[in-house]
Each structure stands twice: as structure tokens, then as C-alpha cells.
């Protein structure tokens, strides 16, 4: 029983790091993706092409490689060194370390690229008539986007978005490549002591979390079912 409690508390600590990475990545990548999607549908060709290439690179290379590049490459090329922190910040102490922040940067950029493509698809799927109806009613471009188009886009993109977001919580495990001590790091650590069951136990954490996410997405979908696009 003592062992079970010890494993539980260690995995919980690791999972709080995973969830923190998950939440902060979403907070940054969701709006960043929208900005990138505007750039990739821009009429200004250099901007559009630049961001299309960026998105291509981010979607076309392994996330693990991107994490490596962001964390190690600046130091290897003598550009700058990610400032090492003695400990993390305040009560996050063991969570928000330099490594965590480097991983957060990599995840945010990578996921923003994926999100931008989902947004782009969503925006382009809205009929031209919606934009024109807004125009002839004297709305500004911003008003058309936020008051008319956005909610329709959100409704359209919830299924692909929920897929991507569920993938994200599982992808956070890639952060232990640069020694962010997430739940799978500790599960693997227990394996070194010969304990295999914590790995499956860690799987249960993910499973429960994804279950919660699924419920939330279903709720949102239901909330938006009052209209059709």
C-alpha cells in the first residue's frame, strides 16, 4: 500500500506538469494559430508564402526534433543559453523550469501550426454569402469576423480541434526528451526499479483526462447545436 501511495503521488506530480504544459500550450497556441491562419490566407503574397513555408516545416518535421532544436541548438551554435533557473517559480517550483519553458515554446509553435490549418479550413468553409451579407449591412471587417463568422467557424472546427487537443495531452510526454519531469518520466523511472505497473497506471491518468475532455467537447458541441452552418 505504501508503494502504491508513493507511486500515486509521484505520478500525480508528474501529471500536473503534463497538464500544465497542456493548458499553457493551448492558451498560447489557440490565438497564435488564428493569427498564423490569417497570414496564410493573406492577399499579401510574401507574408502568405513565408507562413505557408513555416507551417510546412512545423508540420513536416518531428516535434521531438523541434524540441531539440529549440532547447539545445541556441547553445550549440553559441547564440544564447536558455537562462537556467535554480528552481521554478513560486509554488510551481518543480514544474515551471527552463526546460519546461523551452518545451512550452516548442509545443506552442508546433500546435499553432496545426491549429492554423484547422482554422483556415474552417474560415474557408464559411460561405462567401455570410461575408457579403455583413458587408452590405455596413459591418466592418472585424465585426463580420467576430460577430458573424467566428462562431460558425468554431462550430465547424470542433471535431478536428478536439482530435488535435486530445493528441496534445498525449504528446506532452515528448517533453521528457529534454528532461521535463512529466508523468511518463516518473513511470519510466519506476521501471528502472523493476516496477512495470506504474506505466499502465500512468496510462489510466491519460485515459481519465481524455474522458473529461471528451465530455467537455460533447457539451460544447451540444451547446452549439441550436444552429446549422
Amino acid at each position, binding site marked *: 500500500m505504501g508503494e502504491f501511495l508513493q507511486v500515486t503521488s509521484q505520478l500525480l506530480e508528474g501529471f500536473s506538469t503534463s497538464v500544465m504544459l497542456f493548458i499553457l500550450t493551448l492558451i498560447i497556441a489557440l490565438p497564435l494559430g488564428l493569427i498564423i491562419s490569417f497570414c496564410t490566407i493573406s492577399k499579401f503574397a510574401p*507574408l502568405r508564402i513565408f507562413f505557408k513555408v513555416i507551417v510546412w516545416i512545423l508540420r513536416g518535421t518531428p516535434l521531438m526534433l523541434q524540441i531539440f532544436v529549440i532547447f539545445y*541548438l*541556441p547553445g*550549440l551554435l553559441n*547564440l544564447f*543559453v536558455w537562462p537556467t533557473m535554480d528552481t521554478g517559480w513560486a509554488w510551481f517550483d518543480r514544474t515551471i523550469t527552463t526546460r519546461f519553458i523551452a518545451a512550452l515554446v516548442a509545443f506552442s509553435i508546433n500546435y499553432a501550426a496545426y491549429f492554423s490549418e484547422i482554422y483556415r479550413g474552417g474560415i474557408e468553409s464559411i460561405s462567401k454569402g455570410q461575408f457579403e451579407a455583413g458587408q452590405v449591412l455596413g459591418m466592418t471587417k472585424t465585426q463580420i469576423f467576430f460577430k458573424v463568422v467566428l462562431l460558425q467557424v468554431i462550430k465547424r472546427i470542433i471535431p478536428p480541434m478536439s482530435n488535435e487537443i486530445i493528441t496534445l495531452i498525449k504528446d506532452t510526454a515528448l517533453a521528457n526528451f529534454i528532461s521535463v519531469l512529466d508523468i511518463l518520466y516518473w513511470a519510466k523511472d519506476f521501471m528502472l526499479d523493476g516496477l512495470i505497473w506504474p506505466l499502465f497506471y500512468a496510462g489510466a491518468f491519460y485515459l481519465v483526462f481524455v474522458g473529461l475532455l471528451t465530455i467537455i467537447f460533447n457539451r460544447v458541441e451540444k451547446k452549439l447545436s441550436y444552429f446549422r452552418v
Partner: protein
Amino acid sequence: MKKILALILTVVLGVAACMGLTACGGDSDLQRVKDNNKLVVGVTVYPPMDYVDDQGEWAGFDAELAKMFAEELGVNCQIVIITWAQKVAELNSKQIDLVWNGMTASEELGAQIDFSVSYAKNAQVAVVKADSAITSKDQIKTAKVAVEAGSAGADVAADEAMTTVNPVTAQVDAINEVKAGTSDVAIIDITMAQSVVGKGEYAGLKIVEGVSYGDEIFAVGLRKGSDLKAKLDTFLKAKYADGTITALALEYGVGLNTEALAG
């Protein structure tokens, strides 16, 4: 849209400039460590060398030495967990200053990074009854051998093609086999053997003289050409000379590389 592009460029350049300011100046590691006022040591959780004790503090043979070294330099010691496969990238990207983690100083690794003077060693030795007639590797090959399953000792048994091998669940079980007479020889870590064989419960056992397998020496890893090496070597030798390292070795059960430390 041009405005947005200009804005993005400005931000990118700005960030690059800010980060440039924190970039390290010269090539001196010693200066860098002093400027940052901390020595960053990369480890994995690997008892008895590095582990977190019940108080949540770093403990272990290597961790304690690392703290002492930082103290001698007059800077803080920061021990960070790294992924073992990335130790060279961690060093070269200056994320850490030292790898101090019971690291085997192999030739391959030596091509990438520098090593301090070797401070400890490990090898597999043969433990037999004090009155045993076994004195050579050839005799061991055909004897009844006990090893811990999955250990370096088990690897030795396989490499040497020993004929009769009893895999047991712990090194101590292997010695117990010899003590009980169910096996003739136990192949175990020299560290373990030195700390128990010939004493107390195991007084009736001995280590076969002149027989050892797979010698490994442990050293601290540094960036190639680091000027910390001279400081670190002097520190290790001095701490051996004043008995500190020997005391730690006894506490944690580590086999010292006495020849290197004394030299």
C-alpha cells in the same frame, strides 16, 4: 498586412537581440560559472551516486562531491535531471557544466567530451568460499556460477560462456548461494564485494585474487577544452588526500580508483 509583417520582424529581431545580451562572452567555463554564480550539474536518479533523499535533497556519493566542488568555487550548486542519451548535447549547449553521475569514461565518449581524473571504478569479481580451490577464469567457466539476473554479472557469465549459471534475483542472493554451497562462485560488483565479503556473516568468503571482468572507470564529464578540468582534478585529488572521498566511499559503498586519485 505589411504592417503586420514589419511588426513580426521587429519582435523577432528584438527577441534575438535580448537573448544575444545574455549570450556567454568568452570561452572560459570557469568565468561563466562564476558570472552565473552557479555550477549546473547534470545527473540521472542513480543510487548510490545521485538520488533524492527523504528530505527532498540531493544525496549520493557524486551529489555530495558536486556540492563540495561548487562550494570550493564559491558558487551555488544546481543539480538537474537530464536524459542520459542527451548528456553530450546538454554539455555542448551549455545547459549543464558537468555530468557527474557514475559515468563510465569510455573511449567513444572521450571523443566528444573531456573527463576529469577518474575517481571511482567498477568491475565484476568472483566470490568464493575462503577454502575454495578456484583461482582462475578457466576454472570459473566450468564451475556452478550464481549471478543476479539482468546484472552486469549476468552479462559476464554470458560473454565468458560459463556452462552452469544460476540466475538469482539479487546480488546478495548470489553470495548466499556460495555461502550455502549451492553454487561455487558468485559474480558481483566489486563495490558490493568489497563492502561485505570477509566480514560478519560473510567472513567465510573471499574474492578470487587477480580475477576481474569488464573493468569500468568513472569520471566527471566536461565540455571539450573546459578550463574547469584543472580545478576539478585538483579538487578531487585534494579531497582524496584529506580523506573526505574515502569516507564518502565507505558511506555510500563506492569502489574508489585509488591509483588515479593518488597520482
